[in-house]
């Protein structure tokens, strides 16, 4: 395979992220390593959303639901493991867990099931209605989490020990960064493979011209639902990692702010671009900490930047980078 322009930019973005974390680690700056970890996790969430939004054209404003479900599954399993109590006894006993390798599949499964139900219903609508229905489902879960006292309700749920991974010390910021970045890389490879497959061809065709796709014997609904579920599972995994990063989950992970933020990562970086969400999430976190130090109203500046990107560079950061190379 030859390296094309997009691949070079994609690899450069990942290299920059890894170099930042390693550099900060060498300099003993654990806080920056944690910021880079956060960028990797948010990037992963964006990569997940991008599969539905970018490639499938499914403008979901409810992906916080899957992020939050991944987070809550992690928090609930971890807190039960710490307390030594079962999560459930009926219909069969489910014990807590503090093993990431056990928690991730559970988080992804739960998020995937939620995506199956939410997707099956909301994909019967289109356009603005789809946006509103996905938003409504996520908000339903948000209010449910707030009013469910067993796992902290409005205050959220803390667990004091980060879950473990065999052979690694997950408390060391650089090691946890390595875990998150590896999963991000796996998700990127997965996305690259899937979007270039037959399924990916059909998904992108259905986005651009649904009627034509039907006339070629392909039912867009099943294709879109599959993409929505895969997307939800990736975002669920990101939610699990985020919960472990903070050792805390709260209803905020389920709120529409979160859905909006994940969408911002995708739009900043470049809709339907493989590494777009990673670049977008990194930029978001950079701005949050540079501008956030200058003014509490940094989000107003973020808003302006977002506006400028949508108006003048709809390909996002990746679009700008790849275009410059083309003319160079």
């Amino acid at each position, binding site marked *: 395979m030859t390296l094309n322009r997009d691949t070079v930019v994609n690899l450069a973005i990942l290299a920059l992220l890894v170099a930042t974390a390693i550099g900060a680690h060498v300099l003993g700056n654990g806080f920056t390593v944690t910021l880079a970890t956060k960028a990797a996790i948010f990037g992963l969430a964006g990569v997940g959303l991008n599969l539905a939004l970018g490639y499938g054209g499914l403008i979901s404003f409810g992906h916080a639901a899957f992020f939050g479900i991944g987070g809550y599954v992690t928090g609930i399993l971890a807190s039960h493991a710490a307390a030594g109590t079962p999560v459930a006894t009926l219909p069969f006993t489910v014990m807590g867990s503090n093993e990431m390798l056990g928690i991730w599949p559970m988080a992804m499964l739960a998020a995937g099931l939620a995506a199956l139900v939410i997707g099956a219903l909301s994909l019967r609508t289109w356009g603005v209605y789809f946006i509103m229905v996905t938003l409504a489902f996520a908000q339903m879960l948000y209010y449910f989490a707030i009013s469910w006292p067993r796992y902290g309700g409005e205050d959220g749920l803390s667990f004091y020990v980060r879950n473990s991974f065999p052979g690694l010390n997950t408390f060391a910021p650089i090691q946890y960064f390595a875990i998150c970045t590896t999963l991000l890389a796996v998700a990127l490879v997965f996305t690259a493979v899937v979007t270039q497959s037959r399924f990916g061809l059909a998904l992108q065709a259905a986005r651009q011209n649904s009627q034509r*796709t039907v006339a070629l014997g392909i039912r867009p609904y099943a294709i879109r639902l599959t993409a929505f579920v895969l997307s939800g599972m990736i975002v669920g995994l990101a939610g699990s990692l985020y919960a472990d990063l903070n050792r805390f989950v709260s209803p905020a992970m389920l709120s529409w702010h979160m859905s909006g933020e994940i969408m911002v990562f995708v739009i900043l970086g470049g809709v339907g671009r493989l590494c777009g969400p990673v670049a977008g999430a990194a930029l978001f976190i950079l701005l949050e900490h540079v501008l956030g130090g200058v003014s509490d109203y940094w989000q107003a500046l973020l808003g302006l930047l977002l506006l400028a990107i949508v108006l003048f560079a709809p390909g996002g950061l990746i679009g700008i980078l790849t275009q410059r190379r083309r003319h160079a």
Partner: protein
Amino acid sequence: MPEPKRHDPILEIRGLRKSFGALAATDDVSLDLRPGEIHALIGPNGAGKSTLIKQIVGEIRPDAGSIRFEGQVIDGLDAAARARLGLARSFQVSSVIADFTALQNVMLAVAGASGAVFRFHRPALADRKLTEPALFHIEQAGLAGRHLVPAAALSHGERRKLEIAMALALRPRAFLLDEPMAGMGLEGGRQLTAILSDLRAEAPILLVEHDMDAVFALADRVSVLVYGRVIATGSVAEIRANPEVRRSYLGEEA
């Protein structure tokens, strides 16, 4: 299911009716498409040609009547299932996947016809089961050498040919071509006429067309639709001579 005989119609439309409120857009239409023929469907604007096509492909449901395709009643099938049976449709306004290359467009059609779309693993562009038939149909439609051009960058005439390549890739048992000549220049129209004439050997064509030169050059039979009703069906000569057709449709042209 009994094996269809060689001269049985591929497509049999019987007593089709569709009303929108008080307007009967399709009023007791019966039509056949026989093996090896080009059957042209003509009629003034608003005669209900598009509505009829949409019912045949399964995009809208008729109020009454029935459609058989190769002897099988297809009334209960959705549009995707009908396409997979080999009912290949082209659209009035060119309808292709704009960001895809010509090759990817036709590969999509090959994948759709195969019914095996849920393949997540292998890169589609490296899948010779997709690329080889796709390249063959691109050449067949007269687009050889243009397969790596994005559909959006193709000329209008080339996009028409791309649609035909996509229709061919469905391994069609019948073509439904909705105004393929629309917007083609004189030369493009001549080329397309030749391509359509060859296409008849692949499968019969139900041709909706406004271009009377093309219709009279190509059609084996012509049906005239006026206000949702078929007022006449016959050979080109019969239709040209039919007084009712001359009065209601060919008036200004004959």
